[in-house]
Every structure is written in structure tokens, then in C-alpha cells.
């Protein structure tokens, strides 16, 4: 468990690891000693909780280091997600760009692999042209539906906004 914990700690920004890393490991040792006396199921829950806590914490610390995480995002609640003043964090554009770059890179790598195999046939992807129109249709229907709701001032944004207005 400690080995896994140390590995997951590496996902945190260096500054956080420097400030809290050893302290977190010390606390985990103490908590682990408590958990050792419990049932196997309770120990499994403990390991799962610690692992997910670290993963979520690392993600939020990175968001925070980008200047995007709201102050109390560390412990997300429905209260936060329902705050009407919530807007997309500034880092959204950065993250989307990174994801786009990843997708493009994957496509390029895929093309390079196909080229290295010396064939342009890709039988595994024959279904793509068939589902593309369906995908476009569903997407367009979704956009149209949202546009109608927006025009009728019935979209989620409007409903949340009207709920926040004083009566």
C-alpha cells in the first residue's frame, strides 16, 4: 500500500509533494496501522478510499496550479455544482487544447503504424463511414434541441439564473 501511495503521490505537483509529501506518508502509516486490525473488506475500502483520494487530490492540485480551481473544489459537493455563478474554469481551454493535441498525435501515430505495415486497408474501421451520418444526426439534434430550449429561455442556464433571482 505504501509503495502504491508513493507512486500516486508522484502525480501531485512538486511543490505540494515537497510541502506535504512526507507528512502525508506518515499519516497514512498511522491510518494503515488502524486499518490493519479491521476486516478484509474494511481494508479494501480503506485502500480504495486512499487511492481515489490521492487521484482526485492530484488532479485538483494541478488544476489549482493552473489557477483554475475554485477555492473549495478540493471537496466537491452538489452545493458547488449548483452555484449559479459557476463558469468554466480558465484552464478549460488549455485542457481542451491538450486533449486535441493528444487526439491529433494519436491519429498521426495510427497513420504511421498503418504506413509501416505497408497497406492502406483498414478493415477494422469499415464501420466508421456508416455510423458517421448517425453521429452527425444525433449531434445536430442535440444542438437543435438545446437551441430551442435556449430560445424559449428554458435551458439550464436560465432556470438556474431565475432560481437565483430574489422573489
Amino acid at each position, binding site marked *: 500500500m505504501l509503495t502504491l501511495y508513493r507512486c500516486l503521490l508522484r502525480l501531485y505537483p512538486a511543490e*505540494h509533494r515537497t*510541502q*506535504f509529501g*512526507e*507528512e*502525508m506518508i*506518515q*499519516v*497514512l502509516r*498511522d*491510518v494503515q496501522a488502524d486499518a490493519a486490525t479491521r476486516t478484509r473488506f474494511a481494508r479494501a475500502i480503506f485502500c480504495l*478510499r*486512499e487511492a*481515489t*483520494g*490521492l*487521484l*482526485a*487530490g*492530484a488532479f*485538483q*492540485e494541478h488544476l489549482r496550479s493552473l489557477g483554475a480551481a475554485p*477555492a*473549495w473544489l*478540493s*471537496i466537491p*459537493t452538489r*452545493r*458547488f455544482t449548483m452555484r449559479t455563478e459557476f463558469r468554466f474554469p480558465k484552464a478549460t481551454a488549455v485542457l481542451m487544447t491538450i486533449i486535441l493535441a493528444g487526439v491529433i498525435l494519436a491519429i498521426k501515430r495510427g497513420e504511421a503504424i498503418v504506413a509501416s505495415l505497408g497497406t492502406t486497408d483498414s478493415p477494422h474501421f469499415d464501420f466508421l463511414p456508416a455510423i458517421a451520418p448517425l453521429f452527425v444526426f444525433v449531434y445536430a439534434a442535440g444542438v437543435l434541441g438545446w437551441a430551442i430550449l435556449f430560445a424559449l429561455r428554458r435551458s439550464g442556464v436560465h432556470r438556474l439564473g431565475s432560481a437565483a433571482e430574489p422573489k
Partner: protein
Amino acid sequence: MAYSDMSPEAILEMLPLTEPVLLILLSLAGQPRHGYSILKDVEQMSDGRVVLSTGTLYGALRRLLDDDWIEHFKEQDSSRGRQAYRLTARGRRNLQAEASRLKQLARLANLRAVKET
């Protein structure tokens, strides 16, 4: 201090507290504590309902430190290299304001519940 007596700036300063953050602050309200002690106290205060992971705890502590709600506290016996934390004046003021807010809500809920029954 009553919530209604606070200045608007002071009220604005206090964001709504999540239950784990509120419990962490309550844990530090009595005495300075280190991480493990906070975890156990939070679990005890909530009758085992809120069990924080270390990742969650230190995420919250980090933000509370950054916002000057808590501060490091140097223990006399720090042989195990544990770091203790305590509430700052600002943290205590905001905790009191949150307690007043919750008290008002509870009073309102009681009033309405009595009316409904």
C-alpha cells in the same frame, strides 16, 4: 458573534463550507492538531459518517493554509516530525459565522417543521 451582526465584507469572505471542511475547522477549534489527529477527530465527531482520506485532508489543509484560515503550530514534542495546525483569528471568525448561519437555518427549519405538523 451573530451572523446578522457581521459586515457584508465579512460575510462575503466566508464561502459556504462543505461538511468535511466544517468538521476540520471544528476539530482545530478546540486545540492544535496534526493530520492523523484531525482524521480521527472528524470521524469521531461525525459518528463515522465522514471518513476523510489523507489526500482529501491535505487538499483541504493546503487551501485553508493558503487562505490563512489555519496556520502551522510548532509542537514541543515533534519527535515524529508531525506538523500540527491551529485556527487563525480569521479562521475562527469565519467558523463562528458559519455556526451562526447554521443555527439560523436550524431555527428556521424547526419553526417550519412545527408549523407543518
